[in-house]
């Protein structure tokens, strides 16, 4: 899969840009806040209609302009597609090959993109939110059904919270049943994904760290246990909601459930958030990203495009070299932003293009 060209207008601080990309490595360099990450975000939006920066539509549109427009030309298995995304007051509208697309399923997957950002390096030592957000994003990039299920769960959660806020029991058990049902399916998908990528993470971690340490991913469903969910199904969550109903009515919100799930990153049985060195944490996240790419490649028959947002400054020279070696071998298209080109290990990479990004203007350099 390749993105060969992109046109951006009125998007974030980019008034207008047209960029022709290299099929292998693309380096976007410039000072911070100039629009480098916005180019990556535009590519990601063309794949998923969503931002990886937790942004709402108005944040994406240049201030004082009515709407933003993104157009991308992507190629997959020799077939080219033109993807257009309109972001404006009337919401987000998409066209593929100039035909309007109404179903997310028809849009999804034309560009498969994986992001690697400093936020993800931070997740090895942060609270559960970043890890859960990462897990959700990783799963839905290969499974549209998961995205819809995730929406469904959160819509149910909002409705149930609204009812709890009114202090009303009228119909509460039905919303609770629905939430438990969707929540259980969500947890089962999370467990399934983690089981798929754990062996890959283990292998890549060994390759990076070179030792005998065994990496693992331990799913931590909120206030319950994976085997309990597997054994009892929806009953596990129903029991949990039942036990907290009085508290939830008092506080006017849902206090337990999969929206608070976590996953532990483990080395030799020890959680690295608390017991790992900074080096181990970085190697782990790197192995996790490699596993995610490998998984998507197996699933789709072609590797995704990789968006590396200012990663080289977060990884030490050794791990940068590990990553570059992996990417060279993968023959995948990579987009790299950096403030300092000298930190990139581009030796041995013959084909690359580089662009300078300054005050929203992108120029080949």
């Amino acid at each position, binding site marked *: 899969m390749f993105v060969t060209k992109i046109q951006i207008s009125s998007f974030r601080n980019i008034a207008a840009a047209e960029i022709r990309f290299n099929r292998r490595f693309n380096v976007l360099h410039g000072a911070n806040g100039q629009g480098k990450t916005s180019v990556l975000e535009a590519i990601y939006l063309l794949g998923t209609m969503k931002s990886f920066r937790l942004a709402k539509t108005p944040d994406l549109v240049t201030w004082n302009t009515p709407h933003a427009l993104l157009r991308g030309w992507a190629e997959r298995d020799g077939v080219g597609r033109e993807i257009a995304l309109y972001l404006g*007051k009337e919401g987000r509208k998409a066209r593929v090959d100039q035909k309007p697309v109404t179903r997310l399923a028809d849009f999804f997957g034309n560009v498969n993109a994986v992001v690697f950002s400093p936020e993800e390096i931070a997740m090895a030592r942060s609270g559960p939110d970043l890890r859960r957000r990462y897990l959700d994003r990783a799963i839905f990039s290969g499974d549209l059904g998961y995205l819809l299920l995730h929406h469904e769960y959160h819509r*149910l959660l909002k409705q149930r919270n609204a009812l709890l806020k009114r202090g009303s029991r009228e119909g509460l058990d039905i919303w609770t049943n*629905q939430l438990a049902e969707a929540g259980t399916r969500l947890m089962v998908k999370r467990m399934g994904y983690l089981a798929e990528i754990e062996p890959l993470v283990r292998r890549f971690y060994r390759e990076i760290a070179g030792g005998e340490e065994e990496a693992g991913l331990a799913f931590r469903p909120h206030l319950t246990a994976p085997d309990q969910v597997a054994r009892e199904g929806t009953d596990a969550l129903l029991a949990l909601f039942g036990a907290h109903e009085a508290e939830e009515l008092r506080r006017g919100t849902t206090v337990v459930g999969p929206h608070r799930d976590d996953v532990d990153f483990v080395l030799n049985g020890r959680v690295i958030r608390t017991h790992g060195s900074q080096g181990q944490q970085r190697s782990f996240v790197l192995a996790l990203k490699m596993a995610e790419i490998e998984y998507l490649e197996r699933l789709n028959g072609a590797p995704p495009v990789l968006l590396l947002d200012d990663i080289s400054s977060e990884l030490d020279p050794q791990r940068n070299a590990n990553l570059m070696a992996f990417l060279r071998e993968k023959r995948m298209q990579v987009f790299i932003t950096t403030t300092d080109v000298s930190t990139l290990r581009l030796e041995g990479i013959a084909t690359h293009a580089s662009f300078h990004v300054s005050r929203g203007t992108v120029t080949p350099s």
Partner: protein
Amino acid sequence: MLQSSNSFARLLAELQKLPGVGEKTALRLAFHLLKYPENTAALAESLGEVLSRVKFCSICFGITEEDPCRLCSSDRDETSLCVVEEPQDLLAVERTRAFRGRYHVLQGALSPLNGVTPDRLRIAELMRRLEGGAVREVVIATNFSVEGETTALYLARQIKPLGIRVTRLAHGIPLGSDLEYVDAATVQRALEGRSEL
């Protein structure tokens, strides 16, 4: 010019209250209305007519000019009742010609976020109709959204103790889609394959 014309500004404001109409569209519509005064007069007349004549049927709560509506006063099958969210959903099911029973319009779906609790829907009226004893099957055709599904489950629980069979339009209609926008063939297939709740 716009500032000096109060009635024009009011028209723009009213148009913008319509679903899917933004500032630009309102402006385009308003100028169009001014350009073709005869059509506009006919539209104004029709709006007035709708307001004075069209009301909700006192039995099914669909829209009608006569009360009860034609569907309710016809000789259609009284043993089968189809429950929908909105009057336009009734039309969507009716277009399939696959359903020969009667209808009940809830005028919404449960949504605590929007303050829609069971007492805000036409559920009490539905229960009174069912207690009449003629209905043997209720087909729930609420939307396949989170709210529509929850409403269906809520209704099933209320209705089942009456010993009435409750079925749900089978899936095959994509989740989150409004019945109104699904083509007739899809709704027809769903009607044929309805499942027990």
